[in-house]
């Protein structure tokens, strides 16, 4: 039972500020901790002090990875937190709106067809293709989900799931048909993972995620009102059509940007919002930004485990999130009764 509701207090400014500052601090701490662990044991003194191998590793390898993990985790968690009320389904997550399927499909096509090349922006042809695929998929799903010109949540979920399944089968087809060496790179991409990218690229992704998050946080109260039912929400002043469109567009933008770089990482967008809802309550004005921080913390932690668990080899981070998320999900399902109908 969320603490606040038990005391029947409302969300106040100071509580909002306090919670978010706390989460921000926790995120920073987690990121630093995450950057200090890895395949190689770093000498802390060297990291701080003189330029040397350890410092190089910290700045060129660890930090970019941790920052990317934080950005991706935040994006997925916020998108999930916003999609759940807008689709009126607690099981909604960024994975089911079709965007990740479109991105993956486009990436696989690119990997099957493009020549291998080193240097310059060649490395980013696949992520750019993936982003375009994400955009196309979201537009397609949107169009198919319109019922009498309105966005129907139930239809949207169905279309998204079907689209993902369709994309998955096309991916299998492509993988089976191409030359073995390319099959390997396709499998590798699909496994997903937090790779090391240059800071400008991180900056671009951070910008896109920031914009998307801002749009979603702006719709936070609307998302609360939506849970009262479409008609009541509409009567209270919500413009159903445009707010659903905005949420969908922002979520697609963020998810497309991160999936293009890291592949599909599951469970973050589903689990983190639920966890935050249990701790902080359902008020989306707190839940959305809190989910962003919590998502960052979660993914940074999972990535750290992925890097360290079987060093020097690395596990795919999606495996860790699934291993943590899956059982936790079951646990939430079983505790349904005590927390109302929500998971």
């Amino acid at each position, binding site marked *: 039972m969320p603490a606040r509701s038990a005391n029947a207090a409302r969300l106040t400014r100071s509580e909002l500020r306090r919670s978010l500052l706390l989460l921000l601090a926790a995120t920073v701490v987690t990121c630093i901790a995450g950057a200090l662990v890895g395949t190689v044991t770093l000498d802390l003194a060297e990291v701080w002090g003189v330029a040397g191998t350890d410092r190089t590793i910290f700045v*060129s390898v660890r930090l970019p990875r941790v920052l990317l993990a934080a950005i991706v985790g935040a994006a997925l968690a916020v998108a999930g937190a916003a999609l759940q009320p807008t689709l009126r389904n607690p099981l909604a997550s960024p994975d089911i709106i079709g965007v990740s399927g479109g991105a993956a499909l486009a990436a696989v096509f690119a990997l099957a067809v493009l020549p291998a090349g080193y240097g310059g922006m060649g490395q980013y042809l696949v992520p750019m293709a993936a982003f375009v695929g994400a955009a196309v998929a979201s537009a397609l799903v949107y169009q198919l989900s319109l019922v009498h010109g309105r966005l129907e949540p139930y239809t949207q979920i169905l279309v998204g799931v079907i689209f993902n399944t369709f994309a998955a089968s096309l991916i299998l087809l492509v993988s089976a048909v191409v030359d073995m060496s390319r099959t390997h790179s396709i499998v590798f991409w699909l496994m997903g993972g937090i790779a090391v990218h240059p800071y400008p690229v991180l900056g671009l992704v951070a910008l896109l995620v920031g914009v998307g998050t801002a749009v979603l946080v702006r719709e936070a109260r609307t998302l609360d009102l939506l849970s009262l039912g479409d008609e009541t929400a509409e009567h209270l002043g919500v413009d159903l059509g445009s707010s659903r469109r905005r949420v969908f567009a922002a979520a697609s933008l963020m998810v497309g940007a991160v999936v293009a770089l890291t592949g599909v990482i599951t469970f973050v967008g589903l689990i983190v919002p639920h966890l935050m809802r249990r701790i902080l309550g359902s008020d989306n004005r707190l839940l959305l930004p809190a989910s962003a921080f919590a998502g960052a913390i979660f993914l940074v932690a999972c990535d750290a485990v992925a890097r360290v668990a079987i060093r020097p080899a690395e596990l795919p981070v999606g495996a860790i999130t699934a291993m943590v998320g899956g059982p936790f999900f079951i646990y939430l399902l079983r505790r349904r009764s005590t927390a109302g109908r929500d998971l």
Partner: protein
Amino acid sequence: MRPNCNNSFVVASKWLGVVLFAVAISAATPVPTGAAERSTGPAAVAPAPKTDIPEQPFPVGPETRAFPSSIDISPFERLRFAGVPERIVSLTPGVTETLFALGIGPRVVGISRYCDHPEQVSTLPRVGSFLSPVIEAVIKLEPDLVITSPSPGNRNAVEALERAGLRVEVVDEGSASLDTIRASILTVSRLVGRDLEGSLLLDRINSAVNTVQARVSELSKPRVAVVVGYEPLVLAGPSSYLGELVRVAGGKNVADTLGGKWPRTGLEFLLAASPEILVDASMQEFDQDEVGTITRRWARFPLVPAVADGRIYGHGGFLLLRPGPRLAEQALLMGRYVHPE
């Protein structure tokens, strides 16, 4: 242009040798992210004892870039000549073998997890592979040269290593043909300043190949199938070096009709092609269990001529699956399989 770079490099301070060198090279090479990355990136690797640059600069110049026309340099080999590397990380088994065959085994400080030959490598630290290098471990070894083969999965890692200030060379390991293997050996030998040893190695390979070719030239060509993977069934196609070895050894590759490098096919195709000789290169260890498995596997198809005549061959230790300096041995072996006479 290049000799000038090297001159300024020699003139500059020895401590910052590697750093300035890397900057100069990145300025010279058309890598868009290069210059910007270097200036904002971390201070490059500057470990103490390894920058012992010989007084005589490594002979580079247009004349050394004129390779024999029969050898194609593929687009992703960027050859940047510099001083002689002392600490080398090799992420490809073929390159590792080449380095040892060239006599500079002691300079190898890190290898991939797939490297298994020669035995000396068993004590070396493994840092991932050309498919997915472990960036941190590579950096920690402080190499002045990292050699890897092209693979879409390592593009990101290669760029990351370069951003960290390391020198990475991408050399095609040469699974496409004998010529590409020769080219890779040549390239590696030039990279490490062992031209002479490199050409000696090539001579040995060429003589073995020529010998085999000469001996079988008049003989009939039996149908040969080279199985590289069993589930799914993958054969060595005409565009692979194993396919070429079949031709060299005087056989006819049943996979010619399939085309490609490593075509994936079904058992039906193999049975219909009725090979007279079958080389099962998918073996791992040449021990009793493995032999038993292989035997049982093919014994199910007694109608295949290769099975009926007992002409199924294999060799342990991945010998056939490592394009590289042991090409000579591979050619001889293949010759023996196809035409034992």
